Every structure is written in C-alpha cells, then in structure tokens.
C-alpha cells in the first residue's frame, strides 16, 4: 500500500508555492483518491494504445479476419469492428481516445466479439461477485489466521511448534500457489480421491440459483473451497513470518514490559499491546498482496474452472475477444485500486500517529 506517509518529514527548504494547493494536496485521503484515479486512467490508456495502435493490433486482426473469412468488404468490416469496439475508427486519434474515455466513464465498455450482443458490463456484473467472494474470503481467512499463528510462533519462540510452523510457512510461501493448486487436485482429487473434483468444477452447481438461501450458500462454498484453500496456502506463509518477526520486536518494546509491570493480564497485553502494534506493518503489506492475489486469480480460476473475472479474462485472451479483455482487465485493476484505498483508510484509522498527521 502506497502511503507515502512513512517518508521522513521532507527536510526541503520551504518554498512559497500556492498554500491553498499545498493544503489540499497534503490532505492524506484526497491524495490517495487522486492517485487511484490516475492509476485507473493510466491503465485505460495503456489498453487503448495496445488495442488500437500497435501494428497488427487486435482491431486490424479482427477486421482482416472478417474480410478473409467472410469475404465482407473492407469498409463494412471496419463498421462492424467500430460498433463492436464502440470506436469510430476513421476519426482522428485524439478524438477516438476522447470518445473511448467518455464511453468508459458512462460504463460502456463495448460488446463482446465472441458472444454477440452481450455487453462487457453485463459480463463483468455476472462474474465479478464470484472473484470478490473467493478472493475476499481467502484474504480474510489467510490474514487473520496468519496473524494469530505468527503471534503464536513469536510467543513460543524456539520451541518445537515454532520450528514446525516456520518451516511450513517458508515452504508454502516459496512454492507458487497454482502449483499447490495442482497438487491439491492431483492428490486430494485423483490419488486419494477424497474430493470429487469433477463435481467441484465451476462456481455453482447447475440448477442452483443465487439467492440468500442455505442451499445456495452451501453450494457456493463447496465450489469455492479449493480455490480459497489455494489462495490461503499461497499467502498465509508470508503473513505468519512477517507477523512473527514483527511480534518479536514488539515484545521487546518498553510498553510491553511496563504493561507487565502494571500487572495486566497476559491476554489483555497480547491483544491490545502486542497484537495491535505488531499487526500495523502487516496492513501495509496487506494492500500490496491484494494486487498479487487478485492477479493470481487468473491462474487459480483457470485451474479450477471457477467462473470469476479471472476465468473470463483468460477466455477473452485466448479467443482474442479484445473488448472483453480490455474491460475485464480494467475492472480487475479498479478492484485492486479500490481495495488499496480501503486498506489505506483502515491503516490510517488504526495508527493514531498517522491519522492525526493526515488531518493537519
């Protein structure tokens, strides 16, 4: 998470720039939002350039396909491409770009090439919740479990349980999560057949419709269990190790000794003194890992045929369905950027030293 707050107080000679602007910029929250918007804009521009400008870009490939395969005259093929990409191909570049952006702002991401008529937005609305659900749950589970185990390892330092957990953590954090996913399927599914992997394919069993009823929730969890387990295995190791070292240094702090001197109960000290302070640095890391895990969903969802945004993105890349590719990628980036923003806010609420400074 990119709080530039931890930058040391910039010892730069004072300059008389517009004070109003500086007061505005120094507002911690506003700076975050501006940066988030800029990232999204940048990603939108990059995909625009990729789709439209690079020689042999997908638009041209699509047009030549139409001309060759269906013998559609070039001009007509261009019209079709323009409507699908919601782009006016003849207009000067600047104008196209501007149009592309304005469509974006109104949520019109163009329509899919492969499944005619379905707009990218509907695709996103249908598949986004599954990724949010699986990745979100996994992150929560992995983060909380990681913190608790990390603290346990620090409290029980140099004992057998510490060594065992440390080794597990370093092994799982070293091995790529998708390889662990494959191992889960191979061993749990095939070799020991503890789990019926074919039934678990997809994100929902056929015939079960989304709704706030028990069967849906049970079924959704059943399908999502392996992807979530893979995400957790992929990230928990890092949390355990970071929390362990952070707790170890916090245990050495004076205020913990003073808390013990004041006769506070072990539980209270572990929660409000050690836990809270030791977990602070993990929040910064939590935001960074969001981008990593959401990114990883592309592979994990492909692995388990779990129909989330990652899976849709994979298919759109395979089938050269550029509008969907462009829209979904932008959606994933937006999701990560927003998650980072939220993580920033949570962090600034948690650490009063930042919150007060932020408000000045």
């Amino acid at each position, binding site marked *: 998470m990119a709080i530039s707050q931890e930058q040391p107080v910039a010892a730069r*000679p*004072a300059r008389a720039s517009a004070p109003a602007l500086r007061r505005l910029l*120094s507002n911690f929250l506003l700076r975050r939002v501006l940066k988030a918007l800029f990232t999204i804009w940048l990603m939108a521009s990059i995909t625009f350039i990729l789709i439209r400008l690079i020689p042999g870009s997908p638009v041209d490939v699509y047009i030549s396909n139409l001309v060759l395969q269906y013998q559609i005259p070039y001009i007509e093929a261009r019209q079709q491409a323009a409507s699908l990409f919601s782009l006016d191909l003849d207009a000067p570049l600047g104008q196209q770009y501007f149009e592309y952006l304005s469509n974006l702002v109104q949520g019109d991401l163009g329509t899919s090439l492969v499944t005619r008529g379905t707009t990218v937005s509907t695709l996103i609305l249908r598949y986004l919740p599954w990724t949010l659900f699986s990745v979100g749950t996994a992150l929560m589970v992995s983060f909380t479990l990681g913190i608790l185990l990390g603290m346990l390892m620090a409290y029980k330092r140099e004992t057998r349980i510490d060594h065992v957990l440390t080794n597990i953590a370093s092994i799982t954090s070293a091995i790529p999560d998708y390889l662990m996913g494959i191992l889960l399927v191979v061993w749990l599914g095939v070799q020991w057949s503890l789990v019926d992997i074919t039934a678990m394919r997809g994100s929902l069993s056929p015939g079960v419709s989304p709704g706030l009823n028990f069967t849906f929730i049970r079924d959704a969890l059943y399908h999502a269990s392996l992807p979530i387990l893979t995400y957790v295995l992929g990230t928990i190791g890092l949390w355990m190790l970071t929390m362990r070292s952070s707790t170890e240094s916090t245990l050495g702090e004076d205020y913990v000794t003073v808390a013990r001197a004041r006769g506070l109960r072990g539980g209270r000290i572990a929660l409000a003194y050690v836990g809270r302070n030791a977990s602070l640095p993990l929040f910064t890391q939590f935001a960074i890992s969001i981008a990593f895990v959401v990114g990883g969903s592309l592979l994990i969802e492909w692995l388990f045929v779990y129909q989330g945004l990652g899976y849709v993105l994979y298919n759109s890349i395979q089938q050269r369905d550029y509008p969907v590719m462009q829209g979904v990628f932008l959606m994933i980036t937006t999701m990560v950027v927003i998650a980072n923003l939220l993580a920033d806010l949570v962090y600034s609420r948690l650490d009063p030293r930042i919150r007060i400074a932020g408000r000045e």
Partner: protein
Amino acid sequence: MSTSKGSPIQFEHVGRSYGVGTQTVRAVDDVSFTVEPGETLCLVGESGCGKSTTGRMVAGLLDPTEGRVLYGGRQVETLNDQERKRYRRAVQIIHQDPYASLNPIRSISQTLSAPLKHHKLVNGRTELRNRLEELMTLVGLTPPGDFLRKYPHQLSGGQRQRVSVARALTVEPEFIVADEPVSMVDVSLRVSLLNMMLELQSELGVTFLFITHDLAVAKHFAWEGRLGVMYLGRMVEIGLTPKVVGEPIHPYTKSLISALPEPDPDLTRNKERIRLRSLDIPSLLELPPGCTFHPRCPYYEEGLCDTTRPAEDTVSLNGRLAACYVMARELGQEDRIPEESRRQAKLHEQRAS
C-alpha cells in the same frame, strides 16, 4: 593559546527553516556570531533549540535558508572551487553516537587511510603507516597496531569517539565542530575524552565549536572560551564562559543554571530555585509572539515581552550579549528596546495601575 593559522567563521543573521506539511518550521532563526581562529565557542541549549543545525551550517554540511555564512570574511556561496575545497577540508565534524559514526564494515585503518590516500597527504605505505600510528597516539589509542586492525563493533563507546577524533585530524583541520561528543559515553570516561580534545587544541591550535545540552560539561570544556545559550532556534545569550555561568543575564540562562542539580547534597538541596510560569516548551510550529521564552519566564512583563522579538544584541556590554528587554532596562540599556514594545508596556502599566 598558540597562535593558529585558521580563518574566522562568521554567521550574519543566519536562519534555517524546513517545510513540515503545510507550515514552515524555523529550526534556526536570525543567529549571528563569529568564531575566531584558535578559540573555543560552546553552544548550549535544550533539545530542539537548533544547536546541532547551527553546528552543521558552520561545518558547511547544511546551507542556510536566510542570512550569510562567511569564511575568512568571504561568503561561502561565493567562494571559487579552490577556496571552497580549502573551506571544506578546514572544518571537520565529530558526532554524538559512537555506534553510528563509524562505518561498521570498514576497519579502523581503512576508515583513517581513506582521507589520507584520497587527498594524497601521504605517499607510500610506510608513510601511511607512520601517520596512522601518529594519529592513534594523538588520540590516546595505544598500542596503535592493535586498534588499527579492529572493526568498530570490537571497540567500546569511548574508544570509537577517539577514532572519530583521529579521523577528523587526518586532514589537519583548522576547525572542529563537536556535536555532543561525550553525551553517550560513561561519565567516568568523559573527562579523559574532554581533556584529550583540550590538549589537541593547545598543541595544534584547532578552533572548537562544542555543542552540548550539559551546562557543566560546557563550563569545563569552554572555561577559557565563550558560551552561547540557544532557545527555540535563537541565541538568547553569549559571552565569556566564567561570566555567563557566574553572572547569567538572560532569564533562560538563569533558569538553566538554577535548575541543574549538582553532585553535592548540601549545595544542590539549598540552591535557590527559579519558579517557571509553565513547565512545557512551546512547539516550533506555533511559536508565542514576541520573546519566545515569555510564557515560561518569571520576569515576564505584559506588553514589553510579548510584542516584538528582542534582537540578539538587545543587551550589549563589550561582547556580552543577551536578548531580553527586562534585563536591558535593568542594566540601563533601555534605549535599545524598540519603540513598539515600550509603548505596549506603558499601556499595560496604566491599565494595571
């Protein structure tokens, strides 16, 4: 005091401010003084009073944002390359923390040889060897052979500070800025470090700017020199050490002297105490108007002290300066109080009577 060959370093209304978020903080505010070659000037003050920043500006490691720093009468910024190089090597610095002032992965001989070889002050290995041993003996680290091979983590705090001094001496400086050199060393070992530096001064004629928060150490080290007291970025009093310690003028100096405990039960328990009006130091971000000590000063007079800021030389008795209107009036230098403050003071007097 042996005649020393150096040039004086002069501060003229020097200031240094930093941008903190949207506000600007003045760490050093309109300070002027001159350090003559061979002299010892000691700067004393509480943490955050700007003494270290001043030290770094004297050593040319930090540029002022206001005012001028002069070396040998010429402004430092306008020196040409050759003169600037001479100024750069003429002033060296010794730091406070023995554990951070030496590069942990370089041996003592590597640390000391770097300047000697870089500036070609020695040619050939034997001359380097002799110069290293000479430096080690100068700072009292004998037998030199043992120490030269060691690494910083193998030495005690006091020994590391001696290496720091030896490193400063490699380029034969005229001027050494010592920023709290003894405050992290055990009391029982401090004196030998101070005495060693005093011997260097008499032997080599080095000028010293000695920075400390401990008045007693300042008195011991700068007994033959001058003492400057700083508060919230300003020089509130400066003069010959025996005078400033014996008969302080500025209320802040008086409070410091009266507050300092002495290692002698009867003396320190019966010392006359000055009651401050408030215990806590105002923050540099919101400085009180007029004299910045007025919220705590027992001699505070409404109107007089909180209107304009007393200049450094408000009280001026042949070289002895103090920035306080009340004392100026007491010492018959009423004419040096600006009109504005006098008018405000009268106003409050009428209202009060």
